[in-house]
């Protein structure tokens, strides 16, 4: 594996409650190499979106924060504890993010052109006209038709798929090294979804992007990911190359996600493959977080949290009773 562009060690994100700070994400280790797509998979509430927000330095405060002892290194530079100014220089410039909801993620009172040009002007120091021309080029790149006219349109005049293309154009405005994509296709219908995924794949290859792709759609994972990390209750429970995990899942949770679906192009959310739901941050027991829902749980699982251990080269599993 080449030198990672993004290296996350021991990342924890916590939220304030009446009972003190509760962890929503715990002990995450992740490496992301250039030209690689890592899929982060899990149900709602598993902490996958929060992991991406933590990388951006956008954990919603003051109720939330990145816990002490966390480390996020981007091209060797530590982002945890960096100043807002330093983070602003990275965000949207070297690391970009696209969000799930194209309907609400764009400012309704600003033209699309102005929203793309804004990032270019801030990070690349281009003048108004140059930024505008560059924005037109970007709209072309993400294949928005009749771009000259559409630059002056407002988001509500765009369809969902077109808005997501605009989001991608904004994200690519400053040629980032890392792209965080938080369920970018979930809100789109199937054909549009395939178009947007194809576009992302092309752009990744052309720009040598490192992509962290967050999704709960296993079909999407099979299509685009090189590696997979499965999250449950704020922890990574299994990670490895996509072929290896799909061929032989080791963690009972992964097994449940895959095993119950004969067809992998199904959505985890829609199927609810495993009875029960992800425990809230404050409701965790002493042992394995998955134990209450786990068909293979033994008494040890209830009392002792399993460590994340290598079971094969590049393959990690957090389980006392792996398959």
């Amino acid at each position, binding site marked *: 594996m080449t030198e990672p562009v993004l290296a996350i060690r021991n990342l924890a994100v916590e939220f304030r*409650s009446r009972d003190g700070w509760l962890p*929503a994400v715990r002990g995450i280790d992740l490496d992301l190499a250039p030209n690689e797509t890592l899929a982060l998979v899990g149900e*709602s*509430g*598993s902490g996958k*979106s929060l992991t991406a927000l933590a990388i951006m330095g956008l954990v919603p405060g003051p*109720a939330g924060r990145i816990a002490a002892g966390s480390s996020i290194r981007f091209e060797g530079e530590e982002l945890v504890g960096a100043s807002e100014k330093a983070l602003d220089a990275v965000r949207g410039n070297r690391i970009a993010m696209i969000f799930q909801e194209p309907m609400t993620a764009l400012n309704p009172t600003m033209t699309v052109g102005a929203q793309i040009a804004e990032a270019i002007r801030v990070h690349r120091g281009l003048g108004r006209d140059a930024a505008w021309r560059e924005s037109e080029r970007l709209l072309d790149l993400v294949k928005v038709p009749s771009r000259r006219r559409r630059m002056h349109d407002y988001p509500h005049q765009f369809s969902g798929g077109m808005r997501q293309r605009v989001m991608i154009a904004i994200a690519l405005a400053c040629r980032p090294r890392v792209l965080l994509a938080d369920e970018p296709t979930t809100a789109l219908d199937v054909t549009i979804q395939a178009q947007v995924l194809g576009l992302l794949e092309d752009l990744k290859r052309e720009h040598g992007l490192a992509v962290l792709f967050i999704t709960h759609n296993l079909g999407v994972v099979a299509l685009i990911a090189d590696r997979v990390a499965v999250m449950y209750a704020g922890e990574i429970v299994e990670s490895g190359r996509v072929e290896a995990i799909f061929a032989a899942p080791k963690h009972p949770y992964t097994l449940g996600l895959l095993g119950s679906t004969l067809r992998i192009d199904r959505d985890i959310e829609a199927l609810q493959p495993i009875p029960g739901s*992800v425990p*809230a941050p404050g409701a965790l027991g002493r042992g394995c977080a998955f134990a209450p829902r786990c068909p293979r749980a033994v008494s040890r699982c209830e009392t002792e949290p399993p460590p994340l251990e290598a079971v094969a080269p590049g393959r990690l599993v957090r389980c006392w009773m792996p398959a």
Partner: protein
Amino acid sequence: MTAEAVAIETVRRRRSAFRFAAAPLTWIGAALIALIIVAALLAPWIAPYDPLEQSIADRLMPPSAEHLLGTDSFGRDVLSRLIHAARISLAVGVLSIALAMVAGCAIGITAGWIGGWFDSLVMGALDVLMSFPSLLLGLMVVAMLGPSLEHLVLAIAITELAPFARVARAPTLALKERDFIEAGRALGLSELRIIVVHVVPNLLGDVVVVASLWLATAIRTEASLSFIGLGVKPPTPTWGGMLREGFETILDAPWLSVAPSLAILATVLALNMIGDGLRDAVDPRLRRD
């Protein structure tokens, strides 16, 4: 909403509930209002003088041990008038709100129950009514009817019909379709009986909150109309009327203007403090502004 967002939202909500319970403003307001109500109820016993008794020799005296808030241009004791005026202000406020509540709810329930074009017509008319400022509407009504206590109550009640009608209509619409209403019809119960037994109890909570929110506005409107000279006729003391009289001698006897000003301000502020806390705690739908 993701679970993270839910978690954050829960934390926020808990804190806001906590803030209401601990909100000192709400309790200060409640204490202040309790004090004013007690003073109004006990007025004949705690007021040091007869509020109507004139004494030419004692006119326009500044505050002293004998007359704590001084005397007005007829030599009447300002403190005694202030205490007695609380009765009028509270009575007009409560009566007009009660009238608005009954009439407004009746309109709202009828509109919701009948539905269709009748509903659209009534609610459209109420929207127009609501877009009129309380003071101007009250002023028009009293000006046309002539000033008196009854007309004052009626005018203020008209200005505050619309919010009650609205809050009564929505649940009526929802309840109309429910099974137990159908069952009542099948049993041959009269429409009126169904409404009284099943609909009215369901609105009560919301209606009481609206009443508490609009009481401050009612009292402010009463004071404003009295100040313009459209209130209860002299010599009966009202805060707005006292300010109107005091204002005529503001250069010689400023205390005559200050005392009723503070009384009005304290009452309205206290009611708003309670209303604000209630609104934050109960329901964002019932916002006035």
